Structures are given as C-alpha cells and as structure tokens.
C-alpha cells in the first residue's frame, strides 16, 4: 500500500486529492511555486516543498524538481491531478524509473492517447467511430486539407486538452492565423506545437464516460457526464445523467467507452469523450488519461470516490466494484467558478480575494482552492472552485444550484457566478436544449440584471454610516475616517 503521496498540482484539485488521502490516512506532500507560497494547497498538505518560480516550466511542469521533492520527503507515490504533468508520458515513466508509483495510467497509454492522431488510429482499428480529420505536416498543406474536410473546421493541439490550443475556422483566409495561434498556445501549454484539423460540428453535445480499469484487465464505466456548456471550448457546466441519452443509447455508448479503454490497454481512472450529434450518432473525441475536472458529478450520483479508486488501483488492488453494482441516484450538476469577467468575453480577473463565503446546505459541495485574503495569481488557470449540487432530479438540481450560486459571495476578483445564475435559470438550459455553442448562441451579449440595485446603493450608504468592527486590518493610520470625511459631497436635505 502507498505510504505517502506527493500531489504534483495546485489549487482546488490539489486540495481535493489531499482530502481523500487524509480520509485514507495517507500523509500528503504539496509542491508550490513562488506565486503559491500562501496558496491553500500549500497550507493544507501535511508537508509542502518549494519547487521554483511562478512560471509553470520552472515549477509545476518541472519534472526534476518534483521528483526531487518526492525523494526528499520520502513520498512513494505521485498524484498528478489534472493539467500540468498529468498527461505527460515522460513524467509517468520517470516516476516508475525512480521507484515511485504514478497514480494514473501506464506511460505508453498516456503517450498513445496523448497523441490524438495515434488515439484516432487505435480507435478506428477497434471499431470506435472517429471524426473526419487530418494532421498538419506542413504549413502549406493545411489549406488543402481543410478544403478536403470542408469548412468549418477546428484546429486542435495534438497534445491538447482543456480547450488550450483550439481554434474554430470558418473561412479559408483565417486558417493560417488560427494555426499559428493554436500552435503557439499548444507549445506553451503542452510543450508540443503539433496541431491537426478536424471537421467542426456546430450543434453537438459533449458526452463523456468515466472509466475505471485495474491491472487485472477489469474495466467498468461509471456512467456519463454531459459537458456541453462551454466557453472558449472549455467546459463550465457539467451534469450527470445527460438528458440526451435514452437507456439504450447509454448502454451502447457505455460499451463503446469500455471497448475504447480496452483498445488503449487502459489502467486506472480515465474518461472517454464522445461528440454526440443531434441525430444521436456519436464519435470518439479522445481519452483523457487523468482525473477530470468534472469528476465530482459522477461521485455525487454513484457514491464512488474516484480519487480513492485511483489510489487503490495504483496500489495494485483489483476493482472492488463490478459493472452491475454501479448505480446512479438523482441528478448532479457542477459549475466551474472562475475568476473572470463574464461581461467582458470571460477575460481572466486575477487579484486578491477580499471576501469569500462558500454556500452550504444539503446536497451542496464546493471543491475550493482559495481562501479569504489569498491571491488568485495571473500565472495559472483562473479556477476558484467547483460548485457541485446533488438532488433527486434535474429540475431540483438546477434550483439547488441557482440557490447555491446566489449565496456564493466572491469579492475582490470578478467571478462568473452572476452569469451562471442566468444560464441555469434560462428556459433553454432547463429544457435541456444544450449544445456546445450554447453560450455563443443565447448569451453572447449577456449583461448582469439590475435586480437589487436600490438595495446595493442603500448598502453602500449604510456601510459608510455604520461603524466598522475593531478589526486590526480595517484600521488606517491616524484613526478611522468618519463618513463625513470619506464621502465626497453631501448637502443637508
């Protein structure tokens, strides 16, 4: 059994992994960069090791320093979380070479699935349907290949994931710029600039299946997640079950997911992603060889702790759950809460959290990576937390999520919560009419509503008029100013 786990990640997912380790009685080691000296994961783990400058290549992507941190603290296993080194085959291989357990699939599986072209080929050979597409070998070949596939096309990073290095191209004249930008982003995010083209389908759903596989060849799936609500090709709302799947389609896609996992020689937890067209045909997109951001929705409906399963499998244990024992109860929804400005093209909004209050109540879970007073650095993905709710059915889950979002106070950085409230409250979402272009179509010109504006103005004045508590932080040198000094102008009425 694993004795001590180093979590090679940051933010909410590092905290999430630490939580399960703690339940299992396994001590944890966090690693942190310059920007994360006071980050929540740094403070929460049993031990924390500084690994370098804020730039990811100097810290969370630096294999040598992470291995050294594991050695120096006596950790015998590494959990990579998502992003960063989680889908880096060299890292997985290096862990094994150094005598460390990598909590994830074998290096060759990561390598094969990480190269989207090889993955497409493997799936094609095993009869899993794939999207028409082509690899870009030379710059000038791209235009011809795009013509052959037919516009609109999507440019993707071969080593990609998480929406990074992706561009939709509608017109031939935009192709070159899109390829250059995608390639540059891919190089920066994944250290590999290879890109490829695929046919772009506009009215599609993103359906994925969680899989678990052990070293003895047992493979099961933990049902689907629907992740169709995306901005910049990055998921922001996920749910399970999907309202688009009939029991027979669910069975069919579940079988395809298990077949895909077997074709890949998969071990540990993974996700098989499918694109589902309106006519219910589905295509293999990719296998994510890591813990997914949205794994909690599956945990909520199945009651299975996926991180615990990962650790058990990595320890060499066989799966203790058979396919016929996987049951789902109710409906779960996750909203990703980002430090970003929904009024301004979801532009990142780094800064210091001057106040935060997390929602609570039955069926509400918030996987959070920040705390009051901490910094949301500009150097990394701007995720603050993932808010997850679980209720008896989809309608009840939506209402619970809206209630939870209304109680989620985040001040100091711009947050996506007001946008998410309107999105979940919308008729289109409630009717399950959700496609990957949902936001572009229905929420393009979104502005926050003015409900509560008078109360907000009253609150401002009450705040000025009523004395603050004797908090040492609030005191200004030379004593607090009276409202008559701080307010700009006033007249006797």
């Amino acid at each position, binding site marked *: 059994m694993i004795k001590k786990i180093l979590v090679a990640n940051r933010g909410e997912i590092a905290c999430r992994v630490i939580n399960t380790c703690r339940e299992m009685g396994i001590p944890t080691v966090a690693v942190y960069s310059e920007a994360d000296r006071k980050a929540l994961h740094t403070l929460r783990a049993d031990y924390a090791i500084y690994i370098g400058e804020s730039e990811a290549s100097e810290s969370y992507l630096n294999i040598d320093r992470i291995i050294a941190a594991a050695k120096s603290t006596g950790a015998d296993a590494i959990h990579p979380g998502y992003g960063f080194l989680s889908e880096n085959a060299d890292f997985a291989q290096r862990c094994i070479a150094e005598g460390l357990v990598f909590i994830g699939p074998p290096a060759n599986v990561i390598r094969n699935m990480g190269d989207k072209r090889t993955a497409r080929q493997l799936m094609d050979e095993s009869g899993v349907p794939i999207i028409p597409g082509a690899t870009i070998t030379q710059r000038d070949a791209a235009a011809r290949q795009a013509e052959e596939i037919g516009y609109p096309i999507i440019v993707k990073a071969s080593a990609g994931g998480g929406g*990074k290095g992706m561009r939709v191209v509608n017109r031939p004249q935009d192709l070159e710029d899109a390829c250059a930008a995608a390639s*540059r*982003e891919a190089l*920066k*995010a994944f250290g590999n600039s290879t890109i490829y083209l695929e046919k772009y389908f506009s009215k599609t759903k993103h359906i994925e299946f969680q899989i678990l596989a052990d070293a003895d060849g047992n493979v099961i799936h933990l049902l689907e997640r629907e992740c169709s609500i995306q901005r*910049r090709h990055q998921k922001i709302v996920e749910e399970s079950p999907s309202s688009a799947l009939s029991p027979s389609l669910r069975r069919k896609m579940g079988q395809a997911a298990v077949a895909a996992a077997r074709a890949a020689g998969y071990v540990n937890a993974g996700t098989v992603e499918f694109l589902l067209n309106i006519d219910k045909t589905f295509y293999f997109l990719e296998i994510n060889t890591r813990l997914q951001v949205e794994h909690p929705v599956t945990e909520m409906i199945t009651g299975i702790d996926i991180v615990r399963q990962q650790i058990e499998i990595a320890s060499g244990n066989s799966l203790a759950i058979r396919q016929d024992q996987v049951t789902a109860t109710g409906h779960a929804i996750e909203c990703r809460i980002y430090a970003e400005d929904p009024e*301004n093209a979801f*532009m*990142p*909004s*780094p800064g210091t959290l*001057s*106040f935060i*209050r997390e929602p609570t109540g039955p069926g509400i879970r918030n996987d959070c990576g920040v705390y009051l007073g901490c910094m949301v650095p*500009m*150097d*990394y*993905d*701007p995720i603050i937390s993932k808010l997850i709710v679980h209720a008896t059915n989809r309608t009840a889950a939506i209402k619970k999520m809206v209630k939870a*979002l209304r*109680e*989620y*106070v*985040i*001040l*100091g950085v711009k947050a996506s*919560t*007001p946008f998410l*409230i309107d999105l979940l409250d919308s008729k289109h979402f409630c009717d399950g009419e959700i496609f990957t272009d949902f936001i572009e179509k229905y929420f393009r010109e979104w502005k*926050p*509503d*003015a*409900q*509560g*504006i*008078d*109360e*907000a*103005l*009253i*609150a*401002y*004045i*009450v*705040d000025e*008029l*009523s*004395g*603050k*508590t004797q*908090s040492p*932080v*609030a005191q200004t040198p030379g004593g607090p100013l009276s409202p008559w000094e701080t*307010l*700009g*102008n*006033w*007249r*006797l*009425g």
Partner: protein
Amino acid sequence: VEFKLETREQSVSVEVEKKADQQLEVKVGKNNYEVGYTRISDNQIHLSVNGKNSMVFLAKNQDGKVVFINGNTFTVADGDKRVRNRTGTGKSDKTPDSVTPPMPAVVVSVLVQNGDRIKKGDGVIVVSAMKMETTLVAPYDGRVKRVRVSQGDKVKPGDGLIDIEKDY
C-alpha cells in the same frame, strides 16, 4: 443628507434621513424605503428594506465598493469623489493614446513597429494571462508612435504598451 452615487454607468441621487438608531428613511431616485440595518462584520450587513430581509456583502475596490446582493454584484462609487480624483492626481487617468491590457499579463508578441500605419481593429500586440492569449487591437486609425514593451514583459492595466498617434 443627499449623496450622488454611480453604478452600472448611471448616476443616482440618494437621500438619507436618520429616523432612529439603525433606522433610516432612504429615497433612491423616486423610490422611498424604510431601512433597518445591522452590521454583522466589516464585510457583511443585514438590511431590512420595507420589511424585506437581505444579507449584503461589501468590499473596497479601486473604483469604490463592490456590493454583493443575492448573487448580483454592483460596483458602487461616490460620484462627487470620483470627479475629484479624476481632476486630482491624474493617476487614475486613462491613457487614451495608448493600448493597455485588460488584465495583468505577459507580452507574447508585438505585432507592429514604430512608425507603422494602422487601422482601427488591427491587432497590435498579443498578451497572455492565465494561459489564454488575447490580441489587443488599435482603438482608431493612426500611426504607431512608440512601442514601449517587448516580448516577455509583465504588464498590467493602465500601462501604456503601444502609443498610437491618432489620425484626424
């Protein structure tokens, strides 16, 4: 007492009269409210507005205060004070003749050189924050007067990255 407050790009006059301890009569625009309040903490106030309860959260920001109520946030500023600040130090002045990033970022590439003629909407510089690249565009037709930054520089809102001489 009368205040001029600004929020959501509108200016609202608010009249306040103290009725009793923690009791106010407030007129916002044309609406009258009976207000009772309890301060819970530095960031939290309980309001009773015409008998309806709500919990409100506030924090200072560079523009004034951000006020959270029932999932909605408003940035509220003291209108008269803002005017004073603008004419005062000039520190918060925008630099309209220069391109500035919308968030703290790193310069990925500079797309123009000194002296280049540019049209409104042309990309002039690519910046990256939180792993996302954004191309900043020219706000109007003109000529690049000066490129103030180079690749790898850390920049923040308010920094002039590229000065543009506007065509008239």
